């Protein structure tokens, strides 16, 4: 089961040379950009579904947000559209501050493959329409910090020990000095849960995209080494506070009657840590199931007699831990 390194994603921003930027503010520009992307995708030989952020189901939105295939600001961009490839690993969002953003996701953490996929689509669009590009500054974007490669790469890391041992601020500063940003994996810090953190490249200008990915992977390795070191230390000194946290999670998972998604994510985080620290043994399938309980969606019907989704989730979690009771 995934522990330190959860998944990876790459976003490529680009604009059309002849259209003004900031397509989120102008309906005509937005429509033209969307039509152009649509024309190319129709002939790409791949299957995409067309989604309008306003009419998107919450669970679809949630899945796409988790995979970084949907920018949170898309919800409030009035003319934006999303093209989602059927395998749910690639999306093209149009009419954000940039004319289009291609996002590619990999749950095996293959950043290079994500980059190749996104570049392939950008090249197909570039063969048909002239893209805003400069010999000195590379791809030109609405936000200057995206100029150059136009790339934002990110990896999702699970760092519970750094959080519990209050070492994260230090690691965040180190990452910043090394040209990366480490931040909680949610849009709002108050929602931070599951000890999941996103590590992304700070600058997108100067180096090739491949070199930037290499730097990012090195930084991710550095953060994971720090996490591993903290875990080893906790194991060595048998830190009571840490063992208390993981055993509490075990107790909640065994007996809780209502488990929200947030709870499930935190339980997954602490149980994974507990297994790693040798506090208890759990099968890989249990941890995978916990991850599914946290990230999957349980359909809630209108039937008043049907059990609440949180109750169904709790039952599922209990059944994973002790075969249901």
């Amino acid at each position, binding site marked *: 089961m995934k522990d330190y390194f959860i998944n990876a994603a790459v976003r490529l921003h680009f604009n059309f040379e002849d259209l003004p930027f900031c397509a989120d503010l102008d309906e005509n520009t937005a429509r033209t950009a969307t039509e152009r992307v649509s024309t190319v995708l129709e002939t790409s030989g791949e299957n995409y579904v067309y989604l309008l952020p306003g009419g998107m189901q919450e669970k679809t939105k949630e899945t796409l947000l988790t995979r970084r295939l949907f920018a949170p600001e898309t919800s409030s961009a009035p003319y934006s559209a999303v093209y989602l490839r059927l395998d749910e*690993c690639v999306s093209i969002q149009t009419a954000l501050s940039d004319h289009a953003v291609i996002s590619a996701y990999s749950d095996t953490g293959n950043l290079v493959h994500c980059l190749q996929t996104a570049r392939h689509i950008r090249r197909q669009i570039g063969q048909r329409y002239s893209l805003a590009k400069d010999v000195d500054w590379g791809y030109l974007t609405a936000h200057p910090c995206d100029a150059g490669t136009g790339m934002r790469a990110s990896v999702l890391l699970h760092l519970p020990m750094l959080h519990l041992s209050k070492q994260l601020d230090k690691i965040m500063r180190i990452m910043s000095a090394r040209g990366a940003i480490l931040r909680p994996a949610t849009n709002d810090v108050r929602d931070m849960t599951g000890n999941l953190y996103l590590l992304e490249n700070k600058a997108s200008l100067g180096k090739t995209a491949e070199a930037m990915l290499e730097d990012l992977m090195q930084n991710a390795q550095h953060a994971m080494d720090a996490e591993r070191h903290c875990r080893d230390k906790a194991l060595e000194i048998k830190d009571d506070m840490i063992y208390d946290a993981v055993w509490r999670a075990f107790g909640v998972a065994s007996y809780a009657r209502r488990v929200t998604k947030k709870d499930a994510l935190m339980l997954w985080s602490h149980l994974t840590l507990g297994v790693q620290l040798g506090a208890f043994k759990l099968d890989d399938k249990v941890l995978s199931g916990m991850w599914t309980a946290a990230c999957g969606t349980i359909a809630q019907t209108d039937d008043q007699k049907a059990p609440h989704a949180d109750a169904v989730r709790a039952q599922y979690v209990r059944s994973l831990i002790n075969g249901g009771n």
Partner: protein
Amino acid sequence: MTPMPCDMCGARSAPVAFSVIFGGKRAVRNYCISCAQIFKRGDAHAAQIATINMVEADENEKMLCCPKCGTTFDRIQKTGRMGCAECYRALSSPTGKMLHKLSGAQHQEFNESVVQAPQVSAEEEHLQLLKGELAQAVNMENYERAAILRDEINALSHHLSGGNV
């Protein structure tokens, strides 16, 4: 009362006021809901807003204007957004300083000639296939099959990531 325009996009009305510190000086910035989300997220875009504000440009540079869209450098500093592709070229002097401050570099290395169609391994292709089957099984409410597929996907994902996850 006329609503305040957003300091970042300049177009939408701004109900959110942020107290920010730029180069050691406290300032108040008004953002619309959309731009406030970017600021709150703490990602590279948010970091950029502070950095762009700290770029030192003289009055002449601030008033430089893009001949295509009419955007001035002063406006770019306030909003953090370029108006069009031509802005980069027409306002090259202050923009160069800004890009240097943002990334420590002033030009981009290209290797687009090596861009190739993605090479997907047979195992990765099989993984995508299994995921499609899983979605189908869930839709058909065939949960036994879905459970088998889920385990296969987990095993293959684990294998593809080299067990280092």
